[in-house]
């Protein structure tokens, strides 16, 4: 039975998971694994995961998994104080396959969540896994999977519990998307660094990107017209029509001239005033000193 839930993960969560994996303890049975709690909020049919933090855990030699509960609770309270809109929605584990330990961890987390939540009886708890072992199957990717545990069985008797996979989407707040774009530029540099860029350069970059997109669209349109075999995607055709229409109407010469003139006037006025302020500030320094 497919559940209609989708999991929307914010990029910060993934980055924190990678970071806590990099700082994992290198000894004991918990080698190469990081575990932690996910925070977020519930929306209609969607679980938004917006934050997470790692917690210490171990697997005793006897095979029993243990989690530092006090740590978890303290971090949870600290997180609640800073962002009251978030609540615990699940946990993450950097492992490639689910094992029996996962079942026990999941039990622990269901207990904690129900002890904290006041409204419903049991909000759905999500398990997020990140496979950091570059095995053959993943083709150099870091596959992210989300699971929901549900009862399953025959004839309304629950025989077992199954971890059902859920679709994962990556989504972010507006500012997060912008920051992500910036950080991703570091992927291409040799020293893996980016310098913050202000002023006119981002506009130049944006325009370049737009030109690239336009060229791609042109190529696509040409191909479709030329070959006649490719399926014509009517939605794209409609969108293009819309764009051309708006361009034609809005960019009519007289309207556009007016718009440009007025805006230019406003902007130059503001720029003048701002420079005036700066000049005045600079002037007053010697007055103060005298």
């Amino acid at each position, binding site marked *: 039975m497919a559940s209609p839930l989708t999991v929307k993960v914010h990029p910060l969560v993934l980055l924190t998971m990678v970071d806590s994996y990099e700082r994992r303890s290198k000894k004991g049975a918990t080698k190469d694994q990081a575990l932690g709690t996910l925070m977020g909020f519930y929306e209609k049919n969607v679980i938004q995961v917006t934050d997470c933090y790692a917690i210490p855990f171990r697997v005793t030699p006897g095979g029993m998994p243990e989690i530092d509960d006090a740590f978890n609770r303290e971090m949870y309270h600290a997180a609640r104080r800073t962002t009251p809109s978030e609540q615990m929605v699940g946990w993450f584990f950097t492992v490639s396959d689910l094992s029996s330990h996962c079942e026990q961890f999941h039990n622990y987390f269901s207990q904690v969540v129900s002890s904290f939540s006041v409204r419903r009886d049991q909000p759905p708890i999500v398990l997020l896994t990140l496979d950091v072992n570059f095995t053959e199957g993943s083709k150099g990717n*870091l596959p992210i999977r989300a699971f929901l545990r549900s009862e399953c069985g025959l004839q309304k008797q629950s025989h077992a519990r199954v971890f059902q996979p859920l679709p994962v989407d990556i989504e972010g707040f507006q500012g997060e998307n912008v920051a992500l774009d910036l950080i991703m530029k570091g992927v291409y540099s040799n020293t893996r660094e980016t310098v913050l860029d202000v002023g006119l350069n981002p*506009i130049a970059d*944006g325009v370049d990107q737009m030109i690239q997109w336009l060229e791609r669209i042109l190529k696509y349109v040409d191909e479709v017209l030329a070959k006649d075999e490719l399926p014509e995607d009517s939605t794209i055709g409609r969108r293009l029509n819309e764009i051309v229409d708006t361009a034609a109407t809005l960019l009519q010469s007289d309207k556009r001239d007016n718009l440009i003139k007025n805006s230019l006037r406003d902007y130059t006025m503001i720029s003048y*005033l701002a420079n005036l302020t700066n000049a005045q500030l600079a002037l007053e*320094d010697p007055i103060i000193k005298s």
Partner: protein
Amino acid sequence: MFRFTSFAIMADKIILNEAKVKTVQLDCLVVMKIIKHVDSEFYSGMSEVAGETCAGILTGLIAADDHRLEVTNCFPTPRSEVLIEGEEFSQGVLQNDDGKHTEITDMLKRFREMNIDYELVGFYQAHKFGACFTQEVIDSLVDYQTIFQDGVVIVYDPVRTRQGQVSLRAFRLTNKALELSISGDWSPEAVAAAKLTHETILEELPVVIKNSHLMNVMLSQLGLVRKTKPAPFLELGTRRSLEKSYSKYVNEKQRYDALLNSLIQKRQAENDQRAQRNEPPLSLDEIKRQLKVPQLLTRGGMMDIFLNASNAGAFANYASEVTNENIAKLFISESVANAVEESHTRA
């Protein structure tokens, strides 16, 4: 903002070494965390309610040979007014300075357990339009910089970022400003002696963002998966924020002017009274009192003036930068429209 009152300065004179750090390096995780914290507060409308800007602590380490301050992690600090939800919290709990202090040390302890760098290297704050020059920020910076020379404050401007450019800047107090703050003496004479202007109180440090290799893998994967949402900064309609920032800086400017005028007038009055003393004497005590009053008022006054000046300057800079960008956008759109017209007339 909180103060580390428990780390009270014992010595009267502190030997301030030259700060060893020339650039600030942020891990991409820190960037995302700061932005997420501030944005989620905006999203749920909390920053309007609480009236206190979002802030947090930065942790990391100093790479002395490279003159870099590496910030590897951060965490948000709770606000003093707590929105109550659920039965766990008692009503109306206000956290005082000590409470905040213990929270921070607890968090640092937990960082140590999780192998995260737990050394405090500074703090971050969110300010609209980049006008970050408040008394509390300066006080906190003084505290940090007296404990370890290389503390910085990272100012994040969410409005600018929404328009498409991530605005994260790192500041710290210059040495001269630090000395003055420690001695607590902000009278005009001392300031003139130290040759400080409002621009030289804080110095800005260049910021660099660094990713680790695994992060790079993750980011490149994210790049493929994400539905591309182009940032809205190519829009032409940014007038609303300009209006807001303009009105803000007008207010700031007026306050600054008023303060400056009052200061100048007081000094004039002081001079006049000094001249009068040479003439037939009034009772000395009365005159001394009158002489003292203008002094006292300007003790903290110089600092305020500077701060207001810096704020006004920040607003002005913001406004001018944004207008420059918008003018550029206008020209671009004009050339596009011209090209379109030409193609129409040709076809």
